[in-house]
């Protein structure tokens, strides 16, 4: 009897978490429906929608193309010195807050950036203007070429080692090898990779806000923000929100038709050998591709570091606003991470305990609901409820939205670990009569501490670096680190922004690394 009570407790916990998420999202959508579709389809909406899709499509195309080129070169050389670090570097942009990346991109490609210095050094007077489509594409490819390269390299490395031996023995040339072996591997991974990148780019807020160029280069998310923050046209914002939800819904439907791109590599990694690419032309090509990739994706990191170190830290540290922002960000990050941890724990435990497919489907949907209703949608709804919002409520809302943003990632780490843990220990703990809090303390928490900590740190990193949820509520009374950077960038106090960016980038990267399963740890978690 006790054991059964324990199991139903888990289902209740999951139901509670699900009810919380659904309630929060429903309350956000309620005022949207009440304000109801003012605005309608007009040329401006068509313009915004077209630009949203166009920039996402171009970003995806460029990221996938160059990502594939990098992956082909990296996969061709399974054993060069530093390959492991190159693969780790490919994961680095994911841990960098979008705002920090925007700062890095501006430092390289902006008006006073490194690229323009090179241009003027060679006497090419025309200044390269980054704002608008160009900047958005640079920033999106900075994030997504490494992502595509990582997933494509994994797809190529997963082939059985005998394939490469057979290809060499059969005498497949460069073109045949691409057409018959490498190409099909890339094509199999393509829909998942491209869909994921399209989704990221279609819902990208911070990069478009900071690098877009006025009304001509505005995406739906930024248009929603501007309709509320500057024009105060709630009706229009609501209509844009509905369009946004339909758009993300369609992309999610497309994504659901394809398997999620896998990151694990072939278990025979050490035996992996390639017999092509021995010619010096091929070595030169691969070396060049990898070098250009490192330059393009590494430069913003270097710029953040150099500009940050050169900035006026004493001045910044003397600014009480900095300390307030730091305290706010820390509070928000911790609350969001704890909430994400609680929700993902409840969902994961309920998910392995339930026999109902409907409930399981509901839990899965609830865990990734944030993908359908992006942060700007939720904050818009609550912004309208609270009529701008003051006092404690905005903090709570931002923390909850940040927690929901981290939920899909937290679940991806936690769910498999919880599943294998429960399968291993349930019968034993039932036979020992261990249930409820006792089991949590003695059996579950110690065994699952690693994935739990990982989920916690990942959520912390995400929340600390986020601007999307804060954007609407941010202001004099509500200042987070990203918001302060954004404000400093807007008022051209770039040395302050540089120092803040460096701090934020380092903190977020450290937490992201702690929150990312390494290949070795992933193996242990899956065992």
């Amino acid at each position, binding site marked *: 009897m006790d054991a059964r009570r324990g199991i139903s407790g888990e289902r209740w916990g999951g139901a509670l978490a699900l009810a919380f998420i659904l309630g929060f999202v429903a309350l956000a959508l309620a005022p949207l429906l009440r304000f109801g579709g003012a605005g309608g389809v007009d040329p401006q909406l068509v313009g915004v929608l077209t630009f949203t899709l166009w920039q996402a499509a171009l970003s995806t195309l460029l990221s996938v193309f160059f990502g594939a080129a990098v992956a082909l070169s990296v996969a061709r050389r399974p054993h060069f010195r530093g390959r492991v670090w190159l693969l780790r570097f490919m994961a680095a942009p994911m841990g960098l807050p979008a705002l920090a990346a925007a700062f890095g991109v501006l430092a390289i490609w902006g008006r006073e950036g490194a690229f323009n210095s090179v241009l003027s050094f060679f006497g090419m007077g025309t200044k390269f203007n980054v704002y608008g489509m160009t900047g958005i594409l640079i920033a999106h490819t900075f994030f997504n070429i490494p992502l595509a390269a990582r997933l494509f390299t994994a797809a190529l490395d997963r082939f059985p080692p*005998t394939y490469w031996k*057979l290809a060499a*023995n059969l*005498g497949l040339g460069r073109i*045949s090898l691409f057409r018959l*072996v490498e190409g*099909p591997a890339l094509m*199999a991974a393509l829909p998942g990779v491209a869909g994921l990148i399209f989704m990221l780019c279609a819902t990208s807020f911070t990069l478009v806000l900071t690098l877009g160029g006025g009304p001509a280069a505005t995406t739906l998310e930024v248009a929603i923000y501007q309709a509320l923050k500057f024009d105060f046209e709630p009706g229009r914002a609501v209509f844009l929100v509905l369009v946004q939800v339909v758009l993300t819904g369609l992309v999610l439907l497309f994504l659901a038709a394809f398997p999620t791109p896998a990151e694990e590599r072939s278990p025979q990694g050490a035996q992996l*050998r390639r017999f092509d690419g021995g010619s010096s032309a091929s070595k030169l090509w691969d070396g060049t591709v990898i070098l250009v990739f490192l330059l393009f994706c590494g430069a913003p990191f270097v710029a953040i570091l150099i500009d940050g170190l050169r900035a006026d830290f004493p001045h910044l540290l003397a600014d009480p606003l900095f300390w307030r922002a730091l305290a706010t960000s820390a509070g928000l990050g911790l609350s969001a991470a704890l909430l994400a941890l609680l929700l993902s724990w409840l969902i994961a435990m309920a998910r392995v305990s339930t026999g109902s497919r409907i409930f399981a489907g509901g839990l899965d949907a609830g865990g990734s609901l944030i993908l359908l209703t992006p942060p700007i949608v939720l904050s818009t709804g609550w912004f309208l409820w609270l009529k701008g919002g003051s006092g404690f409520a905005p903090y709570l809302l931002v923390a909850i939205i940040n927690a929901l943003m981290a939920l899909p990632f937290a679940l991806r780490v936690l769910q498999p670990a919880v599943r294998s843990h429960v399968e291993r220990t349930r019968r034993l703990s039932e036979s020992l009569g261990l249930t409820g809090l006792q089991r949590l303390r003695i059996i579950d928490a110690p065994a699952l501490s690693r994935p739990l900590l990982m989920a916690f740190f990942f959520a912390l990193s995400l929340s600390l670096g986020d601007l999307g949820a804060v954007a609407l509520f941010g202001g004099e009374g509500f200042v987070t680190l990203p918001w302060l950077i954004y404000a400093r960038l807007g008022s051209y106090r770039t040395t302050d922004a540089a120092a803040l960016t460096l701090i934020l980038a380092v903190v977020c990267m450290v937490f992201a690394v702690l929150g990312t399963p390494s290949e070795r740890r992933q193996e242990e978690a899956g065992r």
Partner: protein
Amino acid sequence: MTRAIELSGVGLTLGSHRFGFDLAVPAGVFVAVTGPSGSGKSTLFNILAGFETPDVGRVLLNGEDMAGVPAGKRPVSLVFQDNNLFAHLDIFTNVALGVSPSLSLDGAARASVSDALSRVGLGGFEKRMPATLSGGEKQRAAFARALVRKRPIMLLDEPFAALDPELRHQMGALLAALHRDEGFTVLMITHDPDEARRLADRFVLIEGGHVAREGAIADLPPVRHP
């Protein structure tokens, strides 16, 4: 008698493992290669197929020095224990790669592919994908590819290890028949002494990176190597 394979003073160091091979195999002979795991059987095959380059010594295949000859130009066909077929290509294409690595096929070449498939008992399997085939059928397709490639030396790395005993017998009989008809030289790594005695003319025992013994199959030591 001409020699299909001749290794003289071949030496190779891989990490902390040192290998040294001296071996002569007459043309047309079926040789069972045995020895404990990690003794160097696969390394021997890698040297013959061109996946490893010896530090010293000469490798002659069909009387030709293989120094500098890339894997694709060597007179050898390979069959592994598994993953012999590209999973995303149909059976016809997988076999046709043995005729032309760029898949430029004329009518006669296409006919030879279908003919080879019939000979291994896979007539009509042209459009099937590897995933729809049983383990034995996949190995048959790999043999069909070796047939159309017409290379005089076949290197088989435990080709039947993943199959159940009855299938091993059937596949062994097929291999023996193909060997009889085509007259190619076969080196087959196997851990099964019965299989070795049933199929091979000679044996080579590899131990500690060297050829420890070789001789007529009747003299194969009765020890079963794990």
